[in-house]
Each structure stands twice: as C-alpha cells, then as structure tokens.
C-alpha cells in the first residue's frame, strides 16, 4: 500500500452533502477484474453528459463543463474538499480505488460514512475530518483563490492553509502508524523480510528440490 506522510496539493471542491459510493463510481463499472482504471469513471454521472459504459474510451465523451473536475483550475488536484457524510452507500472498495486512481491522496470533509472511511486507509487515501465551520471556511478560501493549495501532514495531524493557518485533526494511532509506513497486511509481513529470507535460505539448503524445479524443468521443454 502507498504510504501517506505529507501532501501539499491543489484542492478541488465536491460541494454537496451525502455523496454516495454510486456517485463516486457507478455500478456498471464494478464488473471489472481490476482494482485500477476506475479513475476515468470517478463521479461518472456528474462528470459526463452521457451514460458511461465499462471499457469505454472516455476521451470522446461529452463533459459537463459545470463539474469542477472538468475545469482547468482544478486539473491535477490531489486533495478533495467535501461535505458531510461523504462515501455513504455500499461497501464497495471501488470508491477509494477510483479516487486514488484519479490522483486524490486526501479527502477532507466534516464527516464520512464508516465503511468508506475504513476502506480509504486500506488504499493509501487519507480521510480527514474537520469541523463543519472549518470546512466551510476552506470552501470559501478555495473559491476565492485560483491555485488554492493545502498541506496535509499526517504525522502532525494538521492541515495548513496558504496563510499558515493550522487545523488539527484526529486519527486512530494504529491506522496512522500503518498509513505513515504504508503498511497493509502485506507491508507488515514484509517488515519480516529478513526472517523470511533466512528461513528460505535454510530450506533451500535442506530441500533444494523445492526450488526452481518448475521453471527449470519447463525451460528444458
């Protein structure tokens, strides 16, 4: 999993409450055998004027010019500023996959749906909860300033505005630890890479036939 330490990036607005996972990634895109490639269909129904189909080339689809992500000033944004109850609806992990694939590293909102909140951590995406008035203030600053950027620092648990104003946020210690280090189950196991290698070396010595046979034998034929 990707680690998250600190991000300074362009902010894009998602200015409505209760954005559900269907809105984030509509159901017709879940047939995929993949976990990536959902970025082009992020917010599909809001972003495009036609109905999206899986495996479609989206570059020729009519864009909704009023949708922020289609506007030049928000291109390349990595922080999404959102309203209350972001990510409600189904448990589909495709939602964080789509946000992450699009390029977002952090979503700031006054509140998140539980499952979505959890799923974010598994996928290297940091959900930041800030009080409603603070989020409102950030929205106003964002709209007033082209190229508005925020710095999100997980270690310090702080969001810093361009004026140097700092807002702190809460995050569970264990989750913070895992995300800072980019640890998922696999990451945790890989912390023991030396132990695995040592075991492997011993095993190779004791039972060499357990290694290389499939590759070597197949190469002969």
């Amino acid at each position: 999993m990707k680690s998250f330490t600190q991000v300074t990036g362009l902010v894009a607005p998602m200015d409505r409450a209760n954005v559900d996972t269907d809105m984030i990634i509509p159901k017709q895109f879940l047939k995929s055998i993949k976990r990536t490639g959902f970025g082009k269909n992020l917010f599909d129904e809001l972003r495009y004027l036609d109905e999206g189909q899986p495996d479609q080339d989206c570059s020729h689809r009519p864009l909704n010019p009023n949708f922020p992500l289609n506007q030049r000033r928000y291109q390349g944004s990595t922080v999404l500023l959102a309203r209350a109850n972001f990510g409600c609806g189904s448990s589909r992990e495709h939602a964080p996959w789509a946000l992450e694939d699009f390029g977002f590293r952090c979503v700031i909102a006054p509140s998140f749906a539980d499952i979505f909140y959890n799923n974010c951590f598994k996928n290297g995406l940091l959900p930041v909860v800030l009080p409603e008035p603070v989020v409102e203030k950030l929205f106003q600053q964002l709209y007033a300033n082209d190229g508005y950027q925020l710095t999100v620092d997980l270690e310090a648990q702080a969001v810093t505005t361009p004026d140097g104003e700092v807002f702190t946020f809460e995050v569970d210690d264990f989750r913070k630890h895992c995300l800072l280090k980019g640890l998922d189950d696999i990451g945790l196991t890989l912390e023991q890479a030396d132990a695995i290698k040592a075991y492997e070396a011993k095993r190779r010595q004791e039972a060499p036939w357990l290694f290389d046979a499939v590759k070597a034998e197949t190469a002969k034929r």
Partner: protein
Amino acid sequence: MSARTLYDKLWDSHVVQQRDDGSALIYIDRHIIHEVTSPQAFEGLRLAGRKPWRVDSILATPDHNVPTTQKERASGVAGIEDPVSLIQVQTLDDNCDAYGIVEFKINDARQGIVHIIGPETGACLPGMTVVCGDSHTATNGALGALAHGIGTSEVEHVLATQCLVSKKMKNMLVEVNGTLGVGVTPKDVILAIIGKIGTAGANGHALEFGGDVFRNMSMEGRMTVCNMAIEAGARAGMVAVDDTTIDYVRGRMFAPKGEDWEKAVASWQDLHSDPGAVFDKVVTLRAEDIEPQVSWGTSPEMVGPVGAKVPDPAAESDPAKRESMVRALEYMGLKAGQPIESIKLDRVFIGSCTNARIEDMRAAAQVVKGRRKADSVKEAMVVPGSGAVKAQAEAEGLDKIFLDAGLEWREPGCSMCLAMNADKLGAGEHCASTSNRNFEGRQGYGGRTHLVSPAMAAAAAIAGHFVDVRDFVEGGQA
C-alpha cells in the same frame, strides 16, 4: 520431542515466525494459480509496486471457465465465446507472461484443473505447504502435504511475501479400518464420512485420514478423499506418506531427480503421525459398513446408500435440520420415502477435481463398456481433469468406449462442476455428478445435483436412474 501428528510436523517445519497473538507466518512452498481468483491479486501487487517474491514457486493454469468443446477450444483463448471468461483467461496469460510465471495455457497438453495438475506434474510434493485460491486445494494433502485454499487477498499476500498469516488448527483423525466391498470407491468413503460427521464436523481442524482403507488406497483415491475434506469443514485434509506416495511421485515432471530424489525420499520418511500423537477429535468408521453413496439433498452431508430411501424430515428431531431437509427435498423435487433408485436423471457429469483422474475415467469406462446411455438421459459428459489424463485415456481407448456408449468426451477443465462455462444444468434437471458440491444452483440455476462416484454416475447414465453399481460389476444387469 513429544509425539506429533502429521499436521504438527508440517506446521512446525514451515513456521517462519510465531507472533504473540497466536498467529504465525507460514512459509509457502508451492502456489498454484488460476484465472478467477488471481487477477485482482496481481492488480494489487502492481498497485503497490510489488513483485512476486518467488516466481519459481508458482504454477498457473486456466481451468474454471475454459470451454470444454473442441469447437470452442480450437482457436485457443480467442475462441472463448463468453467475453467475461475470455478476459479472465487472457488476464491470467498476461500476468504470467509479465512476471515470467510458468503457465500451462489453455491448449497446452499439460493444462488441467489446478488440483489435478499439481500432483500429476510433481509440482506438489510430500512435505510441502501448498496454497491456491480455491478451496479444494486440500486435494494435495494426499501427498502428505499441508494444502489449503485461500482468498484473493491472501493470493496477493503469498505472491508478495511467500508467506501466509495463519493460526494453527486443531488435529482431527478419521480412521477407517477393514476392507471395502467390491464397487465401493474412495468417493463413497468420503461421502460416507461427511454423512456421518456433517459438513461442519471438522470445522477448525486439520483432518488426517488414517486406517487400513487409506493405507490400501491408491494415490488417486486418496486425492478424491482429501479433495472433499473441505466439505467436511476442514480447510486441509491429509494422508501419511508411505511407499504408495513415493511410487506415485517418482519420475513426475517436476519431482526431484538423482541425488535430490534420494535425499527427498529420506526426508519424507517422517511424514506420518507418531505413535501416541494426540488428536483433538477422532472418528472411526468400519469399511464393511460403507456402501455406494448418493446425495439426495442440497448439502454434501445429505447423503445415503444407493439402496436407501429418501429420508423423512418428520423423523428428524433437530428442528433446524428438519427445516433444511424440508427445503432441500422441495428444491430437489423429491418425496420422503422415495427409493433413491427411483430418481431419474436428465444429465450425467463425470469430471471435476474430485473425480477426473485416470482411475476415475477407467472406472466409468468399465461400467459403460458395451452398453448404451439411456435415451431418457439428455446428455452424459465425461470431462477429463487434465490434458495428461485425456491423452492417457485416449491411449487406452477409453474415449471410444464412452463415445460408443453415447457419452460425450470433452476437453479438460472444471466444466459443469460449477457451471462457469457453457456446461450447465437446466432448472429442475437431475444430474448424477462426480463433483463435490450439491448446493442449490451450483451446476446451473435450479439444477439438482446428486453426488456419486464415477462408477455410480456411469451406471446411472446407462440405466437412466440410480442403480447399485455392484449389480453391474457383478453382472446382475449385464
């Protein structure tokens, strides 16, 4: 050291690191992959910028949704008519090519069902830990290996780390002593065991099969038994290593050779439970009590001897069980008290990782030889478990025997075991199937599956309804 079970030994020899919370990192020697549960795992690897830890530990083959007709197979991956299946098979090919993983592709002569090709090629060996993203991986336990199925996220974990985070299970022994009667096969033994202990009977346990019956059983028979350990609730089933095991492994494609072979055989001598080893649970059956089995319900434990009648839910004292029996009989379209032999068959399926090895093919062929499929049976298909099984069967002329009897002879794959390809039951159709699961809709929406041995399935194809294969064997209906 105190007396240990076979499972204890396999576990102990693979612990990389014991953790405080009771879980352990277990090293995986062999990882078999197929097209259905691997794509997202590879995707995950890529997303995280990781690579497979040990490519030489992996062997891949597509099996779950490959077509089994020669027509559809003729043009390889491109010929797969179902677009979703095509993408999955293509994705497996692409992933294997990208990482240099050895794959037996769709029309490779060595392609086959994952659990059949593992032992057959010698990719899976005694003393190994074997995993695959499929619950019937337990099949490999017949070799005296610790083998079990894993989920997609674990597939990714093993790809990336060569380890699995696992908690040790308890030990359970099923002992069957005595001599099996003529016409009573390994499939009947495991069905009888499941009928006795139930589908949750071995939950949380690693299951060892011991006693004369397994000692005298062929390796292929042991595989059939271990294959269905999962239907008894055990994630892993196993049989101790003996001369039968070693004779089976000798000379296989990936098996150790020369000096390595001698060393390997020496190290395998210890792969059995020590005298006095303690099991948390022991169940015993008498071989003489086991008759050819037929499942009548929608769970593998709903099974009984072919000569019996469909049981009456009213006689069941446990209300939950009674309720599930009532539902099962309704789904299966059967009446309490109806003789099992009176169940008419619409289709017959001889195949799957449970029963698609050469001995299964031979057993079925022996029954149908010189006979004709009943006209009332719409279709009876024989699907060999691998390209190697198919070639061997054809060399022995078994394909001709099947075709002459009016059965179909297909290309290797999972086929109607789970109906992910075009091989499916229609709603309401009864099927005599040598597979392992008779759940509602498993072989097609509304389909009614009866689990039996290959010989019993073959006999049913000829008679059009269930019959006691011993009557055939002994010439009663010849």
